[in-house]
């Protein structure tokens, strides 16, 4: 079966500097948000446990920027960046992490279950690959109703080892639904490195989609422009009725799997090198040649927004315990 592979940007498309600056602002906002929640978690203010997307900001930002407001996404345990990029105000995400009624899931979901249906976030899933089939279903609904919308599943390399992933891709391709599978391949599933979980070379993971005859697009997950163009091309393909697309984004998890992970399994020098050379925000900053003062202005705005989000969250309302069963049935 013939399949198409193309490099992002091969259409000669480019993104204006203004747009790139917008991406930069969002990526920095995500970074500052993640750093803040790490800090607040360590201070004992946030219940449960957290996975942050430090190092993966370009993937979330680039993909969501290519979507229309009524396109939908499903996210993973590493959910904050996707939620921010899809348009949920950070204060509502922060309030969720504090378990407040003002949270985007009203305090019922938590870090791994961020929902915001109004902006097309159909929810984040704590079960690896758990959200992928639902995205096929959302895309099926769009197809059946003839709506020019796409549904996007975010997931990691580890998720591609589940049966859920394979069954979903197979069905999506069979029915040619307008779905985009956004694979954030950071080469790790918790402590398990690519070589212990993938029989393929880590950079060739998109081959899994080729088995279903699905179109794949490769992009450097640390390059937000490449991610954006890849997602844009994928969206166009899907929405034109040509079938689903797997977008393979090679990315880097520049922190532990969860906040507090001592990463005993990880080579510290390699991690340091990755931090120095693969930070998507640093890469974009260098490319945009932002002046110190410009950078400071953007950073100050991001930091202020995140700080205000913490204040908003802390001032939020605790759900009354006896409301615990309020949403069990419709």
């Amino acid at each position, binding site marked *: 079966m013939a399949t198409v592979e193309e490099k992002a940007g091969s259409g000669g498309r480019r993104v204006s500097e203004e747009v790139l600056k917008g991406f930069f602002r969002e990526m920095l906002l995500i970074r500052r948000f993640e750093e803040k929640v790490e800090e607040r978690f360590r201070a004992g203010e946030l219940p449960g446990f957290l996975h942050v997307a430090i190092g993966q900001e370009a993937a979330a930002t680039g993909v969501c920027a290519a979507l229309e407001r009524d396109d939908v996404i499903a996210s993973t345990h590493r959910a904050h960046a996707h939620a921010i990029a899809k348009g949920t105000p950070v204060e509502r995400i922060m309030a969720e992490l504090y378990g407040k009624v003002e949270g985007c899931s009203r305090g019922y979901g*938590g870090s*791994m279950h961020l929902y915001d249906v109004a902006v097309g976030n159909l929810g984040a899933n*704590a079960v*690896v690959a758990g959200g992928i089939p639902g995205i096929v279903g959302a895309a099926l609904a769009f197809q059946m109703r003839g709506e020019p919308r796409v549904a996007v599943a975010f997931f990691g390399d580890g998720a591609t*080892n589940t049966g859920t992933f394979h069954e979903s891709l197979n069905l999506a391709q069979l029915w040619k639904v307008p779905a985009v599978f956004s694979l954030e391949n950071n080469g790790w599933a918790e402590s398990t490195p690519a070589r212990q*979980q993938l029989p393929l070379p880590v950079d060739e993971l998109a081959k899994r989609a080729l088995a279903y005859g699905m179109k794949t697009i490769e992009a450097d997950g640390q390059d937000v422009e490449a991610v954006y163009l890849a997602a844009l091309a994928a969206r166009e393909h899907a929405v034109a009725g040509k079938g689903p697309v797997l977008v393979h984004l090679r990315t880097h998890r520049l922190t532990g799997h969860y906040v507090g992970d001592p990463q005993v399994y990880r080579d510290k020098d390699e991690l340091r090198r990755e931090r120095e050379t693969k930070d998507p925000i640093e890469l974009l900053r260098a490319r945009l040649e932002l002046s110190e003062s410009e950078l400071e202005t953007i950073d100050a705005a991001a930091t202020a927004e995140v700080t205000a989000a913490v204040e908003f969250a802390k001032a939020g309302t605790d759900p009354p315990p006896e409301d615990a069963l309020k949403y069990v049935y419709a």
Partner: protein
Amino acid sequence: MPEVTYREAVRDALTHALRTDERVFLMGEDIGEMGGSMGVTQGLLDEFGPKRIRNTPISEMAIVGTGIGSAMQGMRPVVEIMYEDFLTLSMEQLVNQAAKHRTMSGGQVSVPLTIRTQGGAGWSPGAQHAQQLEAWFVHVPGLKVVFASTPADVRGLLWASIQDENPVLFFEHRTLYPIKGEVPDELEPIPLGRARIHREGEDVTVVATGRLVHEALEAAEAAEQEGISVEVVDPRTLQPLDEETILESVRKTTRCVTAHEAVTRGGFGAELAAVVQHGAFDWLDAPIERVGAKFGPLPFAPALEQWVVPHAADVLDAVRRTVARA
């Protein structure tokens, strides 16, 4: 007798099994370098190497299925499913394969597979990381189900489970890993199907599992202050079930409370209540009270989560209700 944590006790049983039986090996997600997400398998990779401590991809169905196949071929696999919530992904292999091969083959094969998993609330992970699903598996003939509540029990029962010829679902409770308790010097298997009486009493029998054993013991202390004498029994294995010990206890006390963290509706307490009403009908002085979680997915916010799951106070209330009846 040495004092160890529940976590160390599990590790101790695994180590012992790996040292003494070369057919034993472990499979699971992140059980290698990281030592498991609960730290249970820490150090095992160093001692036994990657052939016997096998880190797996995120493939719960394949992990259990591979365990089944290798068990049928004479190995003694112990697989770890990181959270019992993820047993749902391996359900087909557990329910239709592991549980049924022996019967379907007319006794030609057996599946000596141990599936370790853990769960439990009390740390606000949300709805998909803290369920208590043990009752589901009691409904599947061909499986054995263990739920240990103390270091000594978890060690002896795990060793017995690994030696068992059948597939055993072995439940650990997340909040119990740090608790300490004495264990015998020598590791002896604790036979499956024997309840443990934790505390003798005259007025009410509380049959509790997992974390609720500890809550029941706390409730029993409080009840004592009110002049109510409570006996606490932990079945330890839900299948096979030591009906005799439970019935004897209830015939003595004439009242019964069941207690587990899983939701009450359709929970193991329902089975216990059926067993008790049938086997001790003429002795009962009060309706059997059931303590369990309220009927909803676990919400995230700590106050909501705590409101849903049962505590010692709920056990105490149930005890009082049974006494108030007579």
